[in-house]
């Protein structure tokens, strides 16, 4: 590659990154101003003390807090349960974890064949430390979660048909964590896509206020992550 070509490519990358940064800033402003349309006051109140923390986090101005995530791990084990760990990540706190050996492989086909509730249970158990969705060994499972969300669940929601609220929100949370951990642009864009759905399509999600609140908090952190294109293309 000639020096001139390399320079042009880096200039184009810089330009695209600049455009993306502006788009992220606009979306962060939109989220800060309108997140209460997605999760209204009564939902927050049902979360008790957590509702206050979520309100404080989502209303916080720039620069937004982001969870400090480990890089290049094989598997992480956490003492706390799934909900405490997800909450720590969502509110940009550091979950307590230590590295450990990865469990046996979960085949994407196995996940695909399960019924909705069993699939959720399996995901809650396997990703008790949600950061593990970003482990290299979990690529196929993460791809299956993304596929299901962006193909069948998306189609159902857009048609106004019934959908499994818990499963969709769990997928959005896990994909948000994956986006934070691996800088996967497609997982990031799944969050964008669902955030952009007409608000009436998101009303049903209020049935799971905790997962809904965590999704928005994680989305805010994804939007605050810099250098997306540089990292995604590395």
């Amino acid at each position, binding site marked *: 590659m000639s020096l001139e070509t390399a320079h*042009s*490519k880096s200039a184009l*990358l810089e*330009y695209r990154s600049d455009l993306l940064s502006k788009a992220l800033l606009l*979306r962060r402003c939109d989220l800060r101003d309108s997140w209460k349309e997605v999760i209204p006051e009564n939902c927050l109140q049902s979360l008790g003390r957590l509702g206050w923390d979520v309100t404080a986090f989502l209303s916080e101005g720039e620069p937004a807090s982001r969870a400090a995530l480990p890089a290049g791990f094989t598997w992480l084990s956490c003492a706390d349960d799934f909900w405490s760990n997800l909450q720590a990540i969502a509110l940009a706190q550091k979950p307590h974890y230590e590295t450990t050996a990865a469990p046996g492989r979960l085949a994407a086909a196995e996940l695909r064949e399960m019924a909705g509730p069993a699939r959720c249970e399996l995901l809650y158990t396997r990703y008790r430390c949600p950061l593990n969705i970003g482990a290299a060994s979990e690529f196929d499972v993460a791809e299956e979660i993304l596929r299901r969300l962006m193909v069948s669940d998306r189609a159902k929601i857009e048609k106004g048909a019934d959908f499994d609220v818990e499963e969709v929100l769990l997928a959005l949370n896990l994909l948000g964590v994956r986006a934070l951990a691996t800088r996967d642009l*497609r997982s990031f864009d*799944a969050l*964008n*896509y669902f955030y952009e759905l007409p608000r009436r399509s998101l009303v049903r999600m209020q049935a799971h206020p905790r997962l809904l609140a965590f999704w928005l908090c994680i989305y805010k952190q994804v939007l605050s992550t810099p250098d997306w294109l540089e990292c995604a293309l590395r």
Partner: protein
Amino acid sequence: MRVAVIAGSIAAGMRVAREVEGVPGVELFVAVCDPGKRTPPVRWLREFALLAKSRKEWTAARLWRYARGRRLAVLGEGLNQPSSAERLRALRCDVGLHAANVIYSERTIAAFRLGILNAHIGILPAYRGRSVAEWSVLQGDRTGVTVFFIDSGIDTGERIVLRECISPKGSRGIGELKKVLFESDARLYRRALEALMAPGFQFECNETAKGRRYYVMSEMFTRVANEVLANRMRSRPAASLRTAS
């Protein structure tokens, strides 16, 4: 080589046929299905309306030639119904050309000796799935079209016949770029058939592990991709664009 255009309307079939029928050694058929599952009156009204809109693509004499030569098959049932697959099989075609908005069953694919070619508007194996033109622009990769034999997966067919990079230069937005890419299908089918009939032709392998499946893109990212293209139009750094795409 016996080839059938599988189209979602007579007009769409005639558009592809016009480009491909001149390839030496190709005997061409047009199989028309109705992906929308319309009632017969609605279906035929639509057919006539589309024909009227695309007068450049066909003449009554050409259409009559196909009909009289039994080279125009209008499928009454859904494309993947056993009866339709049987009609397609009866044409004894080597290759099908995808020009309908449908997903093919194994049975339909198997009705063609070599399979069904698809002109995918992204460069395989890197970009499978939806919105691949947008994703290619956003990530600064080459845009273009890949002609390959489909299987029942999403852009996972192993046999690639050709890939052509098509620069987004001149496109003011994603919509224009996609139109250019989609409209190159007939020309690239022609090239693919010529390649298939050339002595010593070898397929490229679609190594799916080297790529990613993409999904419909959000409005936010689509806007960014549009701005990238719009800026290329404004600044026109021609040399670097050629390299980047």
